[in-house]
């Protein structure tokens, strides 16, 4: 009864079913958006903390940051998710935490993609022209002041495309959280499947994720235009609304550095 033909034959009734189930589906969308938003925020914080920590003079700090990054990049998102969901509750006092599913999802997504993001931040800081560091020295500005007032504003413009890709990766990765009982968009759509058939339910789910991904793309494109304008490269945001719809990918995907 399923299949592409069934998809078109049943399109009308299916849309009705979807409409009836909309409250639950919207709850799922909300959970996915929350996981992607908070996970993204946590990832951003981790990216900056551990990205910057890898550039400081103190060797011990650099090494600790390096280990953190390699650990969370190397051990796979799903393992981290399961570890937080299944192992953490079994650990002895003072651990043994049974976290809420959303917290587990946000933590795992934030830690994993944050570790990748730290590499992006580190790389971008390293790509700020050497002359800028020399000018800071010549003006005797303190390293901390120089980092936050001069280097990071410039690095920020460089890192946004990569962070944008990472955030989309995080959104895509978030579809795994239903395995730890977080009732996200994917989970809700899977529930509808019995009634609507596979094609309808899953195409709907994919399109929904695609649209959320585009929201991320537009936000990040806007941030990039603004950041570039601030360092004197490119027009103001109000003059370049067309670039907001520029698709992601390109150079960063091509480098294979985003995942």
């Amino acid at each position, binding site marked *: 009864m399923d299949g592409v033909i069934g998809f078109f034959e049943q399109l009308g009734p299916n849309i009705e079913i979807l409409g009836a189930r909309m409250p639950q589906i919207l709850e799922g969308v909300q959970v996915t958006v929350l996981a992607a938003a908070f996970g993204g925020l946590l990832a951003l914080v981790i990216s900056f903390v551990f990205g910057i920590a890898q550039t400081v003079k103190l060797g011990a700090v650099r090494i600790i940051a390096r280990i953190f990054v390699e650990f969370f990049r190397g051990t796979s998102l799903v393992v981290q998710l399961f570890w937080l969901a299944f192992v953490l509750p079994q650990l002895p006092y003072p651990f043994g935490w049974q976290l809420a599913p959303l917290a587990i999802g946000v933590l795992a997504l934030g830690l994993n993609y944050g570790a990748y993001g730290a590499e992006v931040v580190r790389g971008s800081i390293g790509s700020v022209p050497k002359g800028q560091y020399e000018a800071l020295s*010549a*003006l*005797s*500005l303190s390293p901390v002041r120089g980092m936050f007032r*001069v280097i990071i*504003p410039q690095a920020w413009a460089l890192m946004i495309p990569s962070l944008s890709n990472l955030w989309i990766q995080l959104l895509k990765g978030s579809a795994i959280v239903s395995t730890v009982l977080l009732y996200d968009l994917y989970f809700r759509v899977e529930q509808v499947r019995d009634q609507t058939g596979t094609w309808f339910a899953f195409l709907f789910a994919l399109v929904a994720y695609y649209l959320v991904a585009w929201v991320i793309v537009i936000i990040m494109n806007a941030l990039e235009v603004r950041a570039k304008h601030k360092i*004197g490269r490119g027009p103001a945001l109000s003059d370049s609304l067309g670039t907001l719809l520029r698709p992601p990918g390109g150079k960063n995907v091509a480098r294979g550095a985003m995942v």
Partner: protein
Amino acid sequence: MPENTAPDGATSIGAPHIEFRDVVKRFGDNTVLNDLNFTVAKGERVTLIGPSGSGKTTILRLVMTLEELTGGYIHVGGAPLQYEDQGGKRVRVSDKTRRRTTTQIGMVFQHFNLFPNMTVLENITEAPIHVMGLSKAEAISKAEGLLEKVGMSDKRDFNPSQLSGGQQQRVAIARALAMDPEILLLDEVTSALDPELVGEVLAVLKDIAAETDISMLIVTHEMQFARDVSDRVMMFDQGSIVEEGSPEKIFSDPGHQRTRDFLHAVL
């Protein structure tokens, strides 16, 4: 002819402002400076000339502590800059002390190195506020004075990217002067400029040279400029001084064949 305030021998007045003692600088296996000794007196303007790769820029970068000394000592205002001699032992000067010394030193770069995320005014006030501890109002009024001096008053709220190379370099000069440096290092400041923009930058620098008594260490390929502002010219080749003397002497009557060859090639 421009006036020449300091003939040969002027260096004997007062203690040296900059002193290179047995300075060695290597990059890997490549020895750039070998046992270099010279001094710069307070208020003296010394121009370094010579073929590229002769170590001139490295000398400036060592004074700015952008490069680490391989051997020997540099003293600025009598204080050790990068290393000090403690009873025959060569000890690294702490970063904090280094920074205290380098606060007296300003540098203008070949590629300007303005901060692109700040306006012209912010570029100039950043260090006075956050290094010298000036209030914002003080820093701004000072910056405005300097902008007027370099002829950039009307561009104070511009972004560096909106300026020509010559204008950017004039802002960079104002930025360096805002720190009230006692020593100014000029590293090929016109080399990255289109030929028609060189004049405006050199004019500003000549004014500053005439109006202040800042010690200057200059690397340039503009021989006329060198002749106009220098008290002394040092000819470098392969990391050591071939000869030195007043600009008249060096440019009109060089004593060394290599100097003659070099001047012949650039003039």
